[in-house]
């Protein structure tokens, strides 16, 4: 498709991601990030045309948990605002559509999640088919391990390669002051075979925010805007038994619709919480060795639920802002074993 107007990511901010933030409410976690992202553009809440957020009541442990975050935004006078009950990458998608309609020229997108109050592996079992699967409480690591086993059995990878992916990601995260696990570490013991501690993402709390702007507004707010050349998302069947876990057709289709295959990208920020999932995504996205994958460290270095996907878009955009990338791909995922996937292609103007 050929969008009616150009929309760019013009600012990005995130928290330091930490295992626990007992001393902070979700709103307190989020507030500094909102201030930082607005400060970068010089905009105030009242200047923003549309606001959209992503979060999950199940992480917060209460209904309508996002309403309190809105108080933190300072929605007065009232604002045009919406919320997705999923990763903030999908909130960014909703905001992008809103900007395309011309009803707004700027958008604030934020998302956050605190995993520390609960047992994340148990909590995530509640997002499975409630009648046939959830009652068995299969946890997120066990499901990812099924996928990893399928990949190894298919000859797509082996345990040493998975360990290398984990080490490379965390080594890259040394340059990321926000990362929860910077620096390579021992692969560790099996959590659920074939996945070891090192193949699994850290559990942590965090928040992120992005400002989008259209056309000349973007140029005014940012020296080198990260233009969204395309963005698309697709979903697969829920039942693991009807999917080929070694492949991700939804990622491939989303990438195709986003124009990812029209020209090579130099950077890819992939939302692959497990090392094995990077193998699946690399194949689906046809990423060659020349592509710098997850220079931020990716989800293996920091995986705040509901924010990790938005962070991938933010990290890709920030590299373009800094002149470290000209064309970057950002990916976000939702659901067990990469069920739902979003791909965005970002470009900086030639400098």
């Amino acid at each position, binding site marked *: 498709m050929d969008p009616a107007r150009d929309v760019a990511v013009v600012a990005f901010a995130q928290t330091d991601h930490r295992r626990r933030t007992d001393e902070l409410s979700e709103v307190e976690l989020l507030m500094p990030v909102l201030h930082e992202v607005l400060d970068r553009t010089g905009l105030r809440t009242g200047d923003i045309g549309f606001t959209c957020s992503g979060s999950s009541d199940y992480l917060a442990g209460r209904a309508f948990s996002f*309403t309190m975050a809105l108080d933190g935004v300072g929605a007065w006078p009232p604002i045009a605002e919406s919320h997705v009950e999923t990763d903030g990458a999908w909130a960014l998608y909703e905001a992008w559509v809103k900007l395309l309609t011309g009803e707004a020229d700027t958008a604030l997108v934020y998302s956050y999640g605190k995993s520390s109050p609960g047992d994340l592996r148990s909590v995530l079992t509640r997002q499975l088919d409630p009648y046939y699967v959830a009652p068995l409480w299969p946890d997120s690591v066990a499901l990812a391990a099924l996928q990893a086993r399928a990949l190894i059995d298919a000859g797509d990878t082996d345990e040493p390669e998975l360990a290398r992916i984990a080490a490379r990601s965390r080594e890259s995260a040394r340059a990321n002051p926000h990362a929860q696990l910077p620096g390579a570490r021992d692969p560790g013991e099996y959590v659920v075979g074939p996945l070891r501690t090192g193949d699994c993402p850290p559990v942590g709390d965090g928040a992120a925010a992005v400002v989008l702007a259209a*056309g000349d507004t973007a140029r005014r707010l940012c020296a080198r805007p990260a233009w969204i050349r395309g963005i698309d998302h697709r979903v697969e069947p829920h039942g693991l038994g009807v999917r080929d876990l070694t492949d991700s057709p*939804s990622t491939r289709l989303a990438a195709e619709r986003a124009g990812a295959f029209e020209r090579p990208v130099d950077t890819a920020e992939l939302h692959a919480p497990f090392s094995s999932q990077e193998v699946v995504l690399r194949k689906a996205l046809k990423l060659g060795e020349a592509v710098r994958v997850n220079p931020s460290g990716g989800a293996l270095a920091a995986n705040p639920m509901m924010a990790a996907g938005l962070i991938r878009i933010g990290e890709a955009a920030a590299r373009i802002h800094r002149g470290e990338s000209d064309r970057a791909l950002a990916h976000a995922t939702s659901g067990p074993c990469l069920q739902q996937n979003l791909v965005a292609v970002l470009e900086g103007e030639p400098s």
Partner: protein
Amino acid sequence: MSAAVNKEPVAVVGVGQTKHVAARHDVSIAGLVREAAQRALADAELGWADIDAVVIGKAPDFFEGVMMPELYLADALGAVGKPLLRVHTAGSVGGSTALVAANLVAARVHRTVLTLAFEKQSESNAMWGLSLPIPFQQPLLAGAGGFFAPHVRAYIRRTGAPAGVGSLVAYKDRRNALKNPYAHLHEKDITLEKVRSSPMLWDPIRYSETCPSSDGACAMVLTDRTGAARSPHPPAWVRGGAMRSEPTLFAGKDFVSPRAGKDCAADVYRQAGITDPRREIDAVEMYVPFSWYEPMWLENLGFAAEGEGWKLTESGVTELDGDLPVNPSGGVLSTNPIGASGMIRFAEAALQVRGRAGEHQVDGARTALGHAYGGGAQFFAMWLVGARPPSR
């Protein structure tokens, strides 16, 4: 705001809903949503393959005990291989979901979109789902009724409205529901006296002035001008749509007539070229979960001057055969699958201007407003639909 973008006109060509009941023990959540979706597709005479994207909404995931149920519902909604977007804006979610879907068409990202909202409240207990105590935050105090009753009392004190107005609204909506085959409550022997003598729950809100807990789903098919031209039945055209939010708690908030609601309505009227809503709008589907919210919203939405809303209700203007029928479908007071309730308002508005509302059709309805609100009266979503396409 940029006016440079020429938006695609959006048409509602399919509407489907389930028969709403207290408990649908015969279907799973997937079965419930599929029933509404299939009815919307049948109304549009389209198949699953004609749908480019699916936008789904519901109120808190705690109500069914399923985290992000859209993942599990992807297959039932025919969404496999397509974009599936989940919206959650509290009680206004059904309206917000429809607006997000409409924007996909307006922005020409997709041509034909299925949008759906649901709640299967029998899977849990909504009142206690809303009453989880959180330190240092105001809990919703024994469900939504406990939260909203003080604001109703404030309205009565501020306007001097007589005590019986709420009962009039409930009596009207429950009678309207008798004409709507999909409505949950069909109280065939309803009388005004029965409403008035029903038990007091949260003073001044009586039992018969509150919404039921329903299982149900509502779906719509939205499409562009080309899709509308192929529609087997007259489409409803979206003439304006907006969302507004304000904080839950702050000193300047007017809980009786929130500014976000006023601003949202003003934006919709501006888009649709409405200058006198009282005269130019033929039917209103407004979100009235407790009877007194009809006069309150009549003022908030600009149909009556401040303090005058109850007079419209009392004089019969909002009756089905009145000058400004409000909730001809029976409204939220007769049917409340929370996550779907906002979308039902939007869908019923569309049915009115399509002339497909059956026994509760308002004669000659050409322009109708669908309204939803949620949270602590802080989230608002509205659309205005018309029988004619926008001229530009």
